[in-house]
């Protein structure tokens, strides 16, 4: 199933914050984790992750540092900030309200057609 890129775009920040709330990640790990968790539905172009991460860093939601990964190679890690955690909880609430409303509409229509 393919999902409209615009839809993904709107929720990318929320998904990234959700991941980074668990632990610090570097870019390539984020892509792998997203792919795994979404069961390959979110297959966006990998390079587009970085402008999003850099935007989040500029906004103070995450900060970055360099550290040796498990492989021994040095990678640029991202960690969530206090502002990022706050944004995450706000956006999660908005997302719940949004999906609930969409489900009501969809559920309502399907019920009407039943």
């Amino acid at each position: 199933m393919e999902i409209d890129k615009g839809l993904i775009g709107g929720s990318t920040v929320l998904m990234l914050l959700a991941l980074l709330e668990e632990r610090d990640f570097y870019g390539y790990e984020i892509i792998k984790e997203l792919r795994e968790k979404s069961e390959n539905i979110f297959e966006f172009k990998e390079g587009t992750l970085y402008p999003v991460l850099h935007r989040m860093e500029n906004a103070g939601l995450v900060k970055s540092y360099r550290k040796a990964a498990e492989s021994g190679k040095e990678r640029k890690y991202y960690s969530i900030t206090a502002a990022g955690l706050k944004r995450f909880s706000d956006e999660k609430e908005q997302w719940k309200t949004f999906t609930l409303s969409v489900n009501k509409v969809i559920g309502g229509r399907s019920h009407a057609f039943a």
Partner: protein
Amino acid sequence: MLLPEREEFLKRVLSHVKFKYDHLDIKRELTEHMEDMYDDFMSHGIDEETATRLMVEYMGDPDEIGERLNEQHSCVLGNIWRAVRALAVIMVILSIIPAFNTSLLAVYSVFSGYSETRDRSEAIYDIKRSDTVRIDDLYFKLEEVLYYSDNDLEIRYRTWYQPFSKSVRWSFSLPSRCIYDNMGTQYSDSSGGSSAGLISRHYLIVEGFSPEAEKVIINYDYDGRKIYIEVPLKAGGSE
């Protein structure tokens, strides 16, 4: 691993980022991502050519990525940041210079000789000493006593303060009235000088010091602060 396809991709991305100072960081991060992806493909048994092609394909449109990165790496903000940082460096340097001057003087005073005193080759004899006395946070170290044919006696010493002491740094130099010989004569005709620095060098030349004296006695006692050092001389029948 230098792949021309990857380099071409990175060049295209960076061509859109106007703030050149961030190029290195961006290039590094994207290179590392592509390296990891390439290694993953190879570990899945994909041949080099296909791995290279897929790597570039999976990254996406370099023009789009470059343009969006450019929005996040603003020239204006970047340059303000650079200016602030440069200013901070200048402030630090300006605050270091006075301290540096002082330590430079100290180094100079440690390594330079007593150029302002008499020529030591004129001395009949010299006696090396290293008597150290502490007065509060000040250290006094007698280093040398020289005697000249015109009856001048020269006393060379150093003073310095205990490091990190908080006490008031009173400037100290030995007054001539505290120079005696073993026959009880007090000498008051003298001249002297001091150098600045963390370790100060001093000299005191006492005129008309008796050639018969067997000892020079430094007896300083002021407000409970005392220095008492006896230095046997080579004159007065001892030699």
